[in-house]
């Protein structure tokens, strides 16, 4: 409970969680009203994971994100406008509309991007940490992925190198109990933490619905990474409220309504943290309501803005296939 030592920090954590939930509610609404191209994966229910971790990081720390990436993006400092623009394929989006929900990235805050290949960013995150080590930089990289992603062989390959070379990377496994329509226990043998430990990596398991617990652990591990004590593994126990994606409405064949209700009613990370804030006298109910209302208002404005925003000009279609290389650097002696 002492992870963040002042009121502003607590309130920012709370606000960031509400911003994620609100972002997702609006994104879902855009889908349901057929205003969003394609599908998207909601982060609702898992807010304490992204916020607890990203609040322990600075802008020069990097993260890699997943197909369920809006939460990481908001938590790492992104703005609603560019995010909604991206989800709608508009030019002002973080990726000029070319990436969309599954590839949203926000370079300026150190978000190296969502990834539509499960586990696909494990190498990228570890490589970012390798670069930090080689260049003597003291930034940390957090690699977010789901429980399902632990089935990708890539993870074991990069953990081995991270451990051998003591890289400043934290593998953060968001265990929400499911990969798509399958329960984790049906597709993961043995113990997930033991898999990291087998490579000599210190592993932790934490309640992913408790933002302060997550944040405290993340602060400790990030600090230790900076001292060269990495890598680390953290398994965060959490739950996704929506279906696998926004179109996954009838879920009873793979999980019960009771189970969903239990998580929502008894373990909601926002409700829990709100209760704590009020109990500690950090904020009054009225202040919280005002804050919630403000976030709602911000989201609404951003959605309106994004809906009205321009699509990229069709001439952009073959821009950015290759990055430019300054011809001057290609001369001898350059």
């Amino acid at each position, binding site marked *: 409970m002492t992870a963040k030592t002042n009121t502003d920090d607590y309130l920012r954590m709370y606000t960031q969680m509400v911003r994620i939930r609100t972002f997702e509610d609006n994104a879902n609404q855009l889908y349901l009203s057929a205003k969003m*191209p*394609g*599908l998207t994966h909601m982060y609702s229910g898992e807010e304490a994971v992204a916020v607890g971790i990203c609040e322990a990081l600075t802008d020069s720390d990097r993260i890699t994100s997943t197909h369920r990436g809006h939460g990481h993006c908001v938590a790492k400092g992104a703005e609603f406008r560019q995010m909604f623009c991206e989800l709608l*394929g*508009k030019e002002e989006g973080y*990726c*000029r*509309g*070319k*990436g*969309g*929900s*599954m*590839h949203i990235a926000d370079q300026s805050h150190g978000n190296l991007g969502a*990834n*539509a*290949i*499960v*586990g*696909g960013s494990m190498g990228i995150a570890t490589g970012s940490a390798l670069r930090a080590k080689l260049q003597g930089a003291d930034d940390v990289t957090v690699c977010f992925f789901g429980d*399902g*992603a632990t*089935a*990708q*062989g890539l993870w074991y390959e990069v953990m081995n190198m991270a451990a051998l070379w003591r890289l400043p990377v934290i593998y953060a496994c968001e265990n929400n109990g499911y*990969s*798509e*329509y*399958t329960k984790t226990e*049906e*597709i*993961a043998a043995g113990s997930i933490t033991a898999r990291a430990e087998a490579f000599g990596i210190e592993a932790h398991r934490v309640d992913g619905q408790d933002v302060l617990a997550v944040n405290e652990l993340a602060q400790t591990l990030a600090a230790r990474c900076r001292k060269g004590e990495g890598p680390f593994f953290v398994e965060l126990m959490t739950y996704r409220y929506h279906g696998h994606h926004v179109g996954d409405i009838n879920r009873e*064949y*793979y999980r019960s309504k009771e189970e969903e209700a239990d998580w929502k009613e008894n373990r909601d990370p926002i409700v829990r943290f709100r209760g704590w804030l009020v109990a500690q006298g950090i904020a009054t109910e009225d202040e919280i309501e005002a804050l919630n209302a403000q976030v709602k208002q911000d989201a609404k404005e951003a959605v309106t803005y994004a809906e009205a925003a321009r*699509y*990229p000009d*069709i001439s*952009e*279609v*073959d821009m950015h*296939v290759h990055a430019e290389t300054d011809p001057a650097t290609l001369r001898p002696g350059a």
Partner: protein
Amino acid sequence: MREITLSRAVNEAIAEEMRRDPTTFLMGEDVAEAGTPFKVLSGLVEEFGTERVLDTPISEPGFVGLAVGAAMTGARPIVDLMFGDFLYLVMDQLCNQAAKQHYMSGGKLTVPMVLRTNLGATRRSAAQHSQSLQALVAHIPGLKVAMPSSAYEAKGLMKTAVRDNNPVVIFEDKLMYQDKAPVPEEEYLIPFGEANVKREGRDITLIATSSMVQVAEKAAETLAAEGIEAEVIDPRTIVPLDEATLLESVKKTSRAIVIDEGHQSYGVTAEIASRLNEKAFYHLDAPVLRMGAMDVPVPFSPALEDITVPAPEGVADNARRLCAGEMIHAA
């Protein structure tokens, strides 16, 4: 004849083959209770049980590897690869292991397995869920590659794929799963290496694969209204390729456009066009044109995505110009 969806056709083909041959089984991510995200395989686990319809972890190289080993030792696995874009993950198992076993063992080992996956953009799924990667596998000796263009082909080619003694990759168009086509009640198989002349015509040959067959047919209709008779041919399998049927048509029409949804450069259209140029050169009145997807990662934004793949107007336009004797690029 009854009409069923492509999705249903695939489901029927697999069910029929699993009933016929007890060594056949199905594996992949969320193939059992969920019946895949596209619901193509719904109902199979109820009939065949979880012993023959296996939900796997998200381990594409792993379960493709398992299929290779099972196939080498007496089973006939059908593997579901949820998106064609995941082919990159399984290339070693598919191309170094499955494709080469028969040859490397001097004909002693065989790998009778089917990898079913999909292709196709314009679903707003962005660069890693929209690729059409048939050219990659078509390049590798030892594989066979089928590209059904409707429910009818999807069923007939799948049944042949399951019975073939080689690793077969079959690409379904993910945008076509709900499209209906006439499919006989009676059992039928479509042999590999037999192109299908979808429409006859004397002025120009449109050779199109999978998703592009409809595009070619629409273009042919437009052209017909203008008095240009286009012949539309669907090769159905690109390995083996029915060169004879393609050549015969091109020798008749003297003009051709090859259309495929993979990236144009170093893609499927290049191979087909090259063969026509090589073997029907003196019959051609104009260069064989190619229309593939643009050489760009598939953009998310609808405004951009739609223009990356060949469309009927573009095909008709090129056909008109070829028939009018205009040389598209020639200096």
